[in-house]
């Protein structure tokens, strides 16, 4: 998929999702996460490319595909002054496989009061309502655009539990976020976008274990080692840098394991050079 704007470009973005797994979609603000997700659904029209859901072309099967996909941009951010029951009564009339029993069960499970309006719900509850709607039309694929932004740590943790539970039931999740610690907890795969192109598409363990962190107390080294370092940056007690795991093994340096956030920060830092 390609999309050109005067100040930004999606460059040959291509990826696939593994069924029944959570794929984390990371990248810093403005990297192209939301544009990619909007392009998938044709909210933004790509200049070129093809989007396929369940092996079917989106443009030719939009109606059928949307029956099986739930797209959440944050939580429910439409008609904030209408009651949930009103919104649901309209929304459900669009879906062939609406499961009223499941919907009521989700409301009960997540303490959602149908008499309330979205504006009366917390950010976490708004996400849960949107999830309840998506799951009640039996979405097989959930695409979530930064669902945990604005949630407190407890609500975020609860939401991640819900997503893991759904994956256990065979639902596939694509989850865009810049809060990488959320993905450390729940993601199976990782998709990393930087400057409008996909930098990495991998399972999260391989991706994370592919890097190590080096710490320097005084000054950064010179010579061959310096060439291997990625995104050197100042820290409280000196400098830190990322190094590829195979390079770390080769030089036998004392290093620690990296997590997603550390990897992302150093890679982005490297890109600023």
């Amino acid at each position: 998929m390609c999309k050109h704007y005067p100040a930004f470009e999606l460059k040959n973005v291509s990826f696939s999702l593994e069924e029944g797994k959570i794929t984390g979609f990371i990248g810093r603000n403005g990297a192209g996460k939301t544009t990619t997700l909007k392009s998938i659904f044709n909210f933004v029209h790509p200049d070129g490319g093809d989007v396929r859901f369940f092996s079917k072309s989106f443009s030719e099967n939009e109606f059928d595909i949307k029956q099986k996909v739930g797209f959440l941009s944050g939580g429910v951010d439409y008609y904030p002054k209408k009651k949930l029951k009103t919104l649901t009564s309209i929304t459900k009339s669009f879906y062939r496989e609406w499961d009223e029993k499941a919907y009521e069960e989700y409301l009960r499970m997540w303490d959602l009061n149908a008499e309330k309006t979205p504006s009366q719900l917390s950010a976490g509850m708004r996400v849960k309502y949107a999830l309840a709607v998506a799951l009640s039309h039996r979405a097989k694929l959930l695409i979530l655009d930064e669902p945990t932004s604005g949630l407190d740590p407890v609500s975020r943790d609860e939401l991640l539990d819900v997503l893991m539970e759904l994956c256990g039931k065979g639902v596939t999740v694509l989850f865009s976020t810049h809060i990488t610690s959320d993905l450390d907890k729940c993601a199976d795969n990782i998709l990393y976008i930087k400057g409008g192109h996909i930098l990495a598409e991998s399972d999260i363990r391989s991706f994370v274990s592919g890097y190590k962190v080096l710490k320097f107390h005084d000054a950064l080294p010179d010579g061959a080692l310096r060439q291997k370092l990625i995104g050197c940056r100042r820290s409280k007690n000196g400098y830190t840098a990322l190094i590829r795991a195979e390079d770390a093994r080769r030089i036998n340096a004392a290093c620690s394991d990296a997590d997603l956030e550390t990897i992302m920060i150093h890679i982005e830092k490297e890109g600023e050079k």
Partner: protein
Amino acid sequence: MKPLMKKELLLSMHPTAPLFLLLSSMLIIPNYPYYVVFFYTGLAIFFTCLSGRENNDVFYTLMLPVAQKDIVKARYAFVILLEAAQMIAAVPFAVIRQHMPLPGNQVGMDANIALFGFAFAMLGLFNFVFFSIYYRDVNEVGKAFVWSSAAVFLFITAAETCAHIVPFVRDRLDTADPQYLSEKLAVLGIGFVIGAALTWLAFRKSVRSFERLDL
């Protein structure tokens, strides 16, 4: 289309839209520029689109399993329904005005059959200007309303001026029914065709614009 129409009427429609239908009763004001009565429908359409923008209506609708063309089609169906309801609601008040023991409207056109013909054309003009701009960018609803209102008020000024100075309009069309019935029925028919044609053209243009629009 049925769920989309349900959404238009129960979720998207601004509460003032049905209330403005009651303003059809303004046709019994003895002296008034009666075209303004029909303009209130345009105001209701503007409020509905404005409230849609504030409520993220387009984004919500696009997430539903519907084609983009059908979203435009449903909005036009809603608008046509509203405009038709206004026309129908206005008929009894026009009849009442005709039977009031008063001289005809001193401001401009009488509340007669020809007025409805001109009003159809006027609403078609509103639809054409408003939706041509609105569907190019659904966030520019204010701009769409300013230009469509300007077009409608130019139309009203021209039509009311004709009712005073153009002999055919003044002496034949601006008269009590059923005088000059054939001329008035012709104006009604031509007005309806013009209104329908402008709305159809606007619809085709809107679909093309909306399908290209990046949200």
